[in-house]
């Protein structure tokens, strides 16, 4: 067995179940790692006389670890989801902000193709425009298909032609100038900068992010309440240790420090378990999305609608923040708990 696993404690009980699969589980280094994260190092392997003053693996401590791990997982999951929604909303908004559409009305003299070409050439010369893509008659017709159906009547209608324009986001063109120039040079040409659509999208995405933050605040409050309550319960079970330390002449600061160390370790360990769980979920999410969307065109549409489902590294950094907050919360709660108990003796 590698040396790194040898001091780790695995308290998982398998009862009398036997078999190669179970034996494999018993010797699994991953289970040893999870066991060590939950239980801490082996009691029997420590240096004689160096036992931690605060009991490392009590029932209350284990319950606290489980509660913190679950709440940490939920907090990481929520913060990751909110971050991802915010990230996707920004991407959608950026995509739509980088496009404008020019609408060319059908000309009386049936020379619309020429007019589209001229307008496209004019637009291509303007600074701040990256790409000009005139849509063909068929492509314009396809856009109306969902409303009018696939019929010959479509070709008889005076359907306006569209020119999709991609603008340079770094140095965007002056749309007012372009609009004026087009209106003075061509008849029946209108510029649509998607302002209305952008406003609506901004409202929707902001609502989603605000809603997400609201959920995050609720989960955060529940996490704080659960951790504070569970830490207090664990502290109550350590009352005897505090009492004994107090009676053998330990200073308040010493006792508080011992408990802070203990609960900080529990907080970090349990918070890490929760964060690792959430990391696993977010790493698996793109795979799950790919399976759910079915692949091909459907997958592309699904991706366009819900985004890539890939959490960026700042999202994973958030998990670190969650772990730190949880650990500090445990530490501070235990400190107040110690002083509250000691106050009753003084």
């Amino acid at each position, binding site marked *: 067995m590698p040396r790194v696993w040898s001091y780790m404690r695995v308290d998982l009980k398998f009862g009398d179940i036997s078999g190669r699969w179970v034996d494999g589980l018993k010797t699994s280094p991953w289970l040893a790692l999870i066991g060590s994260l939950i239980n801490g190092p082996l009691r029997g392997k420590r240096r004689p006389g160096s036992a931690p003053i605060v009991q490392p693996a009590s029932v209350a401590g284990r319950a606290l670890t489980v509660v913190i791990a679950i709440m940490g997982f939920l907090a990481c999951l929520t913060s990751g989801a909110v971050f991802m929604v915010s990230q996707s909303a920004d991407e959608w908004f950026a995509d739509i902000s980088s496009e404008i559409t020019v609408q060319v009305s059908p000309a009386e003299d049936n020379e619309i193709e020429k007019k589209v070409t001229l307008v496209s050439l004019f637009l291509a010369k303007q600074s701040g425009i990256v790409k000009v893509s005139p849509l063909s008659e068929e492509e314009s017709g396809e856009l109306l298909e969902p409303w009018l159906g696939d019929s010959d009547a479509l070709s008889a209608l005076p359907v306006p032609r569209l020119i999709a324009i991609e603008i340079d986001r770094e140095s965007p063109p002056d749309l007012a100038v372009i609009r004026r120039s087009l209106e003075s040079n061509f008849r029946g040409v209108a510029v649509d900068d998607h302002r209305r659509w952008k406003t609506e999208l901004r409202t929707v995405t902001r609502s989603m992010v605000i809603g997400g933050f609201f959920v995050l605040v609720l989960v955060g409050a529940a996490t704080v309440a659960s951790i504070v309550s569970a830490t207090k319960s664990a502290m109550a079970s350590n009352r005897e240790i505090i009492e004994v330390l107090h009676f053998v*002449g*330990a200073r308040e600061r010493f006792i508080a420090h011992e408990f802070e160390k203990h609960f900080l370790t529990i907080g970090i360990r349990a918070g890490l378990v929760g964060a690792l769980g959430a990391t696993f979920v977010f790493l698996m999410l793109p795979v799950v999305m790919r399976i759910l969307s079915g692949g091909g065109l459907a997958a592309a549409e699904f991706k366009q609608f819900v985004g890539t489902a890939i959490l960026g590294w700042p999202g994973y950094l958030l998990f670190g923040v969650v772990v730190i907050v949880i650990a500090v919360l445990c530490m501070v709660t235990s400190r107040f708990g110690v002083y509250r108990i000691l106050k009753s003796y003084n």
Partner: protein
Amino acid sequence: MIRFDNVGLRYGLGPEVLKDVDFHLLPGSFHFLTGPSGAGKTSLLRMLFMSLKPTRGQIHLFGQYCADLPSAERADLRRRIGIVFQDFRLLDHLTTWENVALPLRVFGNSEASYRDDVTDLLKWVGLGDRMTAYPEVLSGGEKQRAAIARAVIGKPELLLADEPTGNVDPNMANRLLRLFIELNRLGTSVIIATHDFQLMEQCDAPRLVLHEGRLEIR
């Protein structure tokens, strides 16, 4: 060393459980604290140990007036006192050796400086072969001796023992009494709270008798 002047104690708004307690104990003295159950022996011990404040009167320990001492100074005074609880109060997750060494550890001493002292003391109280045992496997007498060893390892000037023979057979009670007498010979002042008359008859020591909240020295 210990002076109680007109000390009274009541819990909440209840009647006074200790009334006008006056006594003065000299260094190196040996006393029994006795009285019927509920007479206030444990309360008096707790006041001696500064874990209970009197509702009136003054307590001086080692020449210092105890009321309103900052917590750090109270902790320093407690280091000069060893206490043996009736229910031992050994920490279950520490071995006998670690339990006994606990006071020195919290004083901030290095393990190397007390390793031999703890081992010698455990041998002296007859627990040489139980040093690595956890309290849950110790007998009542062994726990009591471990608790006494923990109380005296810091070489206290005052040793308080609350019913130290309450959980042991007469033979073990005699052995523990001899241990206290031996500690007293080495210079530690000893106060043993007990209502075991057999035990008190074996030692010609003054008795602090509590009766209906008042203290009398016999």
